[in-house]
Every structure is written in structure tokens, then in C-alpha cells.
């Protein structure tokens, strides 16, 4: 049997020591009428060679971002991952450990998380980061719960319509069984207007959720939006792109109260959507309501610096139903990868990644706008992602299918989220893309539009 070390002799000896004759007797606490009287209906065991062949064949039926240049974004991005990230995170001492409950046996993980918390705080300009959440979507929901727990307002949560639709769906799902309503501010020309936001705010609005750059890649005029929300006493939650912070203004500098992010782009593989990394950080005043693990610095009995899980009275294993969140296992390995990534990038490396992504995205936008039948949907400044409109009533899904056939992951049809943008495609460009790939993408769109 795979991975079981007991030999038949061991099994006999061990049963004898317990005072039993058979393995079946181990389960005599389980009522007989519930016990399964047949083998599970699952396929027979595969050896390592067979499994490798089988899973390899399944993998071969997919076209990965290594098979086709990837221009897909929408919260998950094909940024370059340095080899050292994979090599270091593959150390069994990291990935086969668990939550560092025993500080003396876990200083490696604890120091790495403390450094992660620092790196995220430095990157965002915020006071405090937690040890990670599941993903960028649930991080927004947890940010909302924090805002609700931090004040006495429970009537309303206002989200910009340019916040990633799946993040808003997560927030909506979380709020379904709770008191506040989620109100969405529609966006105009791909951005959120201060007037529209202000109109949605009420005296019992607990939180406002914004995204910078927003889901269309557009840069919001963020400071007036933040000010408008805070003037009405709402907590401002801003979801950001951590790569963008190599170049863009830090949320701590534009006044955000709680900052969330999808941290996948920091050294984590795309993996069809997960495991990713939920980043959550905040101003110090929200500290006692922060969800999930926190690592703090202290000293041991001989005065040596060390690190421990701390402020655990916020957490479910102590507070149970009064906890700030139900989260237990989080995304430790992804946070480790993000830390290694940021350590490898450094200030100038991250700035280059952000700047090259932005420059290549702008080049791509120019080239695609030259393609007959395509135009840029919005005219505001953008970072590394932009929306093109397909003219002539052509179905973006069919255009994308043809672009795919020509060898590209060419974009995301956003009509699935925005019916009013049913003719639009979201395109992301990272520093990995080359001018040749971008030119070829434009050619593929040209061909697809002339044929479909």
C-alpha cells in the first residue's frame, strides 16, 4: 500500500499489543449497519509511473501560458517567477511544516512571516499586515467584516462597480446572511465618479470598497474618492495590484484605512486560480479586529530575539463564535513565495517589472487600437491592463476563440460581468511579453476580425 510502512508482521504485532485479532476490530465503535460493505467505487491504484503518465496526459490536453503567450489578467497575471522562488519554497522544511504553534520548532516559518508582514507594510505604506488570507476576493470580504466590527455602522457597504466583479460577488455572498446591504456604484467611462460615490453614501455606511487600478486596468482618481468616503465617516478599503506598487502611489499615502490585494503576481504560479494569496493590511487603529494569524517579535527566556504567533485572542481557536474571523489555515506557503519574490526584486527590480509592464501594455494598446474593428473602450490613464471594444456587432467570444486558435490567450470577454460591455475585451500585458508577441497578437486580432 502506498506510503504505509507497517509490514504484515508489524501489523500482527501491533494488533496483538492492542489486544485485537484483525484490522476490522479497530472499527468496532462504528455501528455495523453504517459500515461500507463494498470497496469504494474509485479507480484502482496507480503506481508512480502510471500516475505520471495519466496526469501528464491530462496536463498535455491543456494549453498553458507556456504554450501560448498570455494576455489574460482580471486579477491573475503571468509575471515572471525567478528560479530561486521555486527552489527555496520547495524545501521540505518549509512546505511540510504546519502553522507555527510551537515557536521553538518553527522559528523559520515565524521569522519568514514576520518578514512578510514587514515587506507588505513597506510595499503598501500601511502600518500592519496579517500573515495572509485565502485570496484577493475573500480579503475584500474580510476587510468589510473588519470595518463592520470596528464601528457601530451596519446599514450599508458601498462598492465601486469597477471593483473586480468576483470580489464583489464574494462580498455579496458574505453579506447575504448578515445585516448590511451591498450597494454598487456604477462606473462611467471605466472609472468611478466622486459624485456617484457620494450619492451612494449614507450616515450608516460602514465601508467603501475601491480598487486601484480598477478591474478595467484604469487608474481611479483615488484621492477624492477616498476623501469623499472618509468625510462621511466610512472606512475605506482599497484593493490594489501589488506589482503596481513598484510604480504607483502607495495606498498608505493616499489615505486608505484597509488595503487588500491578490498576491498571486508576487511569485505564485497561475494554477488555474489557486492557491493564491490574500493580502490584508491596515492602519494600526484596526489592529484588534484584523482577521487571521499575526506574528510578533519578542524575546525568549535568555533575552534572544524570536518570533511567536500573537494576539491570538482574536482568533477562532480561542474566541470561537466571537472571533474576528473563522479563518484557521491560511496561505503560508504563498506568503513565503511572495516574500522571496520581493526580496529578489528589491526596490528597483519591482519598479522595473511595473514600469515594463506599463510600457508594454501601452504599446499593446496602441497596436491593438490600430487594428480595424478594435478601439480602446476608455480614455483614462491605465497601468498594465486595458479594455478594447469590438466593432460591427462581432461576438468577442468568437473573436477570442479565433485568436486562441492562432496561438494566443488573447483576452477576457467581460460581457460575462458587464452586460453593457458585451462588446468588450480586457487585455493584460506583463513584463514577460515581448514586442514580437504583442505585434503578433495584433496580427491575430486583425486576422480574427476579418474572418469572423
Amino acid at each position, binding site marked *: 500500500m502506498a506510503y*504505509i510502512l*507497517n509490514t504484515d508482521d508489524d501489523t500482527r504485532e501491533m494488533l496483538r*499489543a*492492542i489486544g485485537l485479532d484483525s484490522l476490522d476490530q479497530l472499527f468496532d*465503535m462504528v455501528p455495523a*449497519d*453504517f459500515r461500507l460493505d463494498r*470497496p469504494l467505487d*474509485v479507480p484502482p*491504484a*496507480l503506481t508512480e509511473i502510471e500516475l505520471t503518465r495519466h*496526469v*501528464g496526459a*491530462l496536463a498535455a490536453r491543456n*494549453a498553458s501560458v*507556456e504554450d501560448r503567450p498570455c494576455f*489574460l489578467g482580471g486579477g491573475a497575471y503571468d509575471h515572471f517567477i525567478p528560479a530561486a522562488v521555486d527552489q*527555496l519554497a520547495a524545501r521540505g522544511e*518549509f512546505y511540510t*511544516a*504546519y*502553522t507555527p*504553534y510551537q515557536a*521553538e520548532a518553527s*522559528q523559520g*516559518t515565524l521569522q*519568514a512571516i514576520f518578514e512578510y508582514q*514587514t515587506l507588505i507594510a513597506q510595499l503598501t505604506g500601511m502600518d500592519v499586515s496579517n500573515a495572509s488570507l485565502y485570496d*484577493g476576493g*475573500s480579503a475584500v470580504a474580510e476587510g468589510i467584516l473588519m470595518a463592520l466590527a470596528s464601528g457601530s455602522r451596519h446599514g450599508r457597504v458601498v462598492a465601486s462597480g469597477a471593483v473586480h466583479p468576483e470580489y464583489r460577488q*464574494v462580498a455579496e455572498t458574505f453579506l*447575504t*446572511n*448578515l445585516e448590511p446591504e451591498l450597494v454598487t456604484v456604477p462606473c462611467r467611462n471605466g472609472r468611478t465618479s466622486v459624485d456617484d460615490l457620494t450619492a451612494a453614501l449614507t450616515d450608516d455606511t460602514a465601508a467603501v470598497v475601491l480598487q486601484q487600478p480598477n478591474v478595467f486596468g484604469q487608474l481611479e482618481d483615488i484621492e477624492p474618492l477616498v476623501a469623499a468616503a472618509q468625510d462621511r465617516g466610512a472606512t475605506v478599503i482599497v484593493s490594489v495590484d501589488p506589482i503596481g*506598487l*513598484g510604480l*504607483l502611489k502607495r495606498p498608505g499615502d493616499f489615505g486608505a484605512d484597509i488595503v487588500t490585494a491578490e498576491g498571486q503576481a508576487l511569485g505564485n*504560479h497561475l494554477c*488555474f486560480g489557486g*492557491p*493564491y494569496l490574500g493580502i490584508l493590511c491596515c492602519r494600526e487603529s484596526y*489592529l484588534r479586529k484584523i482577521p487571521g494569524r*499575526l506574528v*510578533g517579535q*519578542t524575546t*525568549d527566556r535568555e533575552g534572544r*530575539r*524570536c518570533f*511567536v504567533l500573537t494576539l*491570538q485572542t482574536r482568533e477562532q481557536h480561542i474566541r470561537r463564535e466571537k472571533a474576528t474571523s*473563522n*479563518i*484557521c*489555515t491560511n496561505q503560508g*506557503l504563498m506568503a513565503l513565495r511572495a*516574500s522571496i519574490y520581493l526580496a*529578489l526584486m528589491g526596490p528597483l*527590480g519591482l519598479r*522595473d517589472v511595473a514600469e*515594463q509592464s506599463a510600457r508594454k501594455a501601452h504599446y499593446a494598446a496602441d497596436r491593438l487600437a490600430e487594428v480595424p474593428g478594435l478601439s480602446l473602450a476608455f480614455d483614462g490613464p491605465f497601468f498594465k491592463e486595458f479594455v478594447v471594444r469590438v466593432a460591427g456587432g462581432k461576438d468577442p467570444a468568437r473573436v477570442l476563440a479565433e485568436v486562441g486558435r492562432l496561438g494566443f490567450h488573447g483576452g477576457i470577454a467581460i460581457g460575462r460581468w458587464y452586460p453593457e460591455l458585451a462588446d468588450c475585451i480586457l487585455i493584460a500585458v506583463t513584463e514577460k511579453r515581448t514586442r514580437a508577441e504583442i505585434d503578433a497578437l495584433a496580427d491575430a486580432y486583425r486576422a480574427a476580425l476579418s474572418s469572423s
Partner: protein
Amino acid sequence: MLKKDQPPLLFETSRPGRRIAVAPPLDVPERPIDDLIPARHRADTPPPLPELGELDVVRHYTNLSSFNMAIDANFYPLGSCTMKYNPKRNERLAALPGLAGLHPYQDESSIQGMLQLLSELQELLGEIAGLPAVSLQPAAGAQGELTALMVAAAAFRDRGERRTTVLVPDSAHGTNPASAQLAGFQAVTVKSDARGLVDLDDFRAKLTDEVGVFMITNPNTVGLFDPQIGTIARWLHDRGALLYLDGANMNAILGVVRPGDMGVDLMHYNPHKTFSGPHGGGGPGAGPIAVRDDLAPYLPSPVVGRRDDGTFFLDHDRPKAIGRVRAFFGNVGVLVRAYCYIRSQGPEGLKAVAQHAVLNANYLLALVKHAYPVPMGERCMHEFVASARALARDRGVRAMDIGKRLIDYGFHAPTVYFPLIVSEALMIEPTETESRETLEAFARALLAIAEEDPDLLHRAPLTTPISRPDEVAAAKRPVLRWSPSPVEPSATSDRGPRTVPSF
């Protein structure tokens, strides 16, 4: 462990001018950045991250890793966490570019292999649970609990029923009441009886018409299978309420008994426990849920569907779905490893997992129970909870002291002080992947410790780089990040301040 001193923080190692990542020459026309992104959106300086060389980073993390205990190096009997061996083959397969290199919004035609794998996993988990409808979306066990409770809430709403209460045993994981609260229910605790099982009298007294769900962990956190589960399910169903199973302990019953066959309506799995996903130093996990067929419409979207022509698709067209609990499909990398594990085991292998997990736990129990009494049960399932109560009373040695001392013997500590219903609890889960020799060595260590000088035990561990951190100080004056200190020049460096750049 050759090294004794923990490495300095990354930030303390930073040297202005060191650099690793360099972008290739820009191959698109270079325009002034102001033309692309107006200055008001840009930061004035690059982010204040440390400046390091590649060998700095590699040594830093390699050395840090040596300050961890981990399954690859140590027996790790952390009760309730199922720290079993994480097969290397699963790591290699999950990292295949054809799986790890898929973007979540790729066109369906380009991910048919992935969707087939996930579709098969839905079926495998349904069969193992005896509950056919599966959602792979939840990112961890706690999120699975929350999702399942939201599914239940949606079903009650749909039926026009108002059910406000979720019952949770006092032996349950803390996530259970926390999830109940978050799903909009009031969590009410049901007592355990002297045997460590659900106190049926208390359960019956609290089973009102307001009760929507009872969350049971079976085998429970004391390591016992609660044979009353059939009665519990019947009473709940008679009142229109649902039975939820916290699947944290599925390792004990794989292929032996299926939750659906004993009346469970909804459950979650912890693939990182039961199906050998590495725990990652605190995640990632995954928390797929399996539910009865009639609850399937409420599962979050999307689920993987199969068309008549054999192709697979992501089914978003499910009007009664509760929505989403996270973005994108789920923690797919963890799910791929679970798939690899289940396919490696087959039906006999899965049952053997449960058999040997329970055998190992009972064998270890038999070796130590004369020195470490187990208040609830002479026998156990996959884990047992010993009590250091007598040691604490007679010699002043607490569960924590024993756990810390085990580290000196090269073993990770068991879970201590949980479940809450056993005083001075030591919750020990050896798992099926440990050998008899390891169990015996661990037992010898436990027995030796019971005889050791209490003063020594209070100071344990004695062989680790640090010992007995001051947790009270950590919580009282939280230091949750390194901060650049402008007034404190480094005493150890004559090469300028060790700090991150300020530009």
C-alpha cells in the same frame, strides 16, 4: 542543525546598491513615463524594500528553513492536523506547466484536461463521502464550513423556513462556532458526556424548531467515533434540520464508513489533511464540500459540468447558487495533489489509510497509557487525547512542558490544550505513514519525560536556538513588523547603516 543563531532579518542585511532582478532591455519604443501614467498616480520613489544579492536571499531562506521542524525531517504528531507524509510525486505533477501554468480565465477549449481532472475529483469526493454533489471552491476547511452553512441557510430561505441556530459540540474545532456566526446563525454549544460523546439529553433539550444545523465532528476531537450519530441524524431530520460533518478526521474512516450513509447531509473535506496536501507552514489548504443531491442547486458557482459530447465546462448557470466564497475556481494546486493521492491509493489503499491510521494511534496509545492516562476511552480512532493532569497535580509538569521537551527528543509537540473538554490535553495523531519504530521511539521519549526532573522540563526545550518566548510581552506590546530606525546606527557594521533605501 549546525547553526544555532537565527539569521538577521532581510531588512538588516540590506546593502544599498545590491541588486538581483534585472529586466531585459525594453523592446518597445520608450516614451516619457509622464505620457503614460500621470505623475499624480505615481509614487515619488521606488518601494522601500531591502536591497540584496541572490546568494544573500538563498542563504537567508535556506538557513531559516533549518529552524523548522517538518514532516520531511521529523515525526509531527500534531493532533487534528493529520501531518502525514506528503508524496513527492504529487509535487512534481502539480507543478507541470500544463496544470500550474493555466490562467483561471482561459478559454474552456484550452483547459479540457484540467476540467476533466476536476470533474473526476468531484465524483471521487462524492463517492468517498456518500454525498454526490460537490463544490471544489472553498479555500480551506473553515471556508468549507462557512460555505456549507450558507448552502443550508439558502435552502431554508428557499423553503420559507426561519432557522436561526446552529448547534456545536463543546469538543468542536473553534472554526465551527466562528463559521456559524459568520453565516448568520447563533452558535449554541451542546455538552459532551462523560464518555466524550454528544450528551444526547443536552442535545435533545437544545433541539428546537429554530435549529438549522448540527455540526458534528466524527470521529470527534477526542478521537472517538460517536455511535449515536444515527440517532442524532434521525432527530434532526424529524425536525427538518440538517446534519453537518466537519471532515477534519476523515482520515480515520476512509472506505470504512461514508458520512452520507450515516445520515450526514453536508460535509467538508480537508484535502491537505486527508489527501496528503502539504501544509505549507500554515496553508494552503482546500475545503471542498459534499452535500445531498437536493442541496446541489445551492452550491457556489461554478461547478464543473460534462456535456453529452464528453467535453467539460464551467457551469455558471445555476440560479439558486449562493454566489461565491472566493475569486476564481478554487485552490486547484491543492486539489490536483488530492487527485493524485486518491488515484495512487485506489479503493484498497484508501481503506488501508484508515486502518493503519487507527492501528498506529491505538498502538501508540497502548504503549503510553499507563503513564499518560486517556480519560475518554481505552481505545481510539486515528488520534487520542491524553491528559497530563496527574503530572501537573503531582509534579507541576504541564502539557506544554511535555510538548516542549519532546522537541529536544527530535519530535514535534502534539496539539496541547485542545480539545477544551480535557484538562492538560495532549492530542496525539501519529497518522498511517509512520513506522512502528518511530511510534516506539516516540513512546520511549514520552515515558522518559514523565520521569524527568520537573525543573528541567520547565526550561525545555534545551537544544533549540530559542526557548520559551515571552508570549505575554508579544501580545502586550505588539511588534508586528520591522521598522527602519533613523536614530539607531548599527553597532555591528562599519559599512554604513544597514537599512532599506530611502531614495
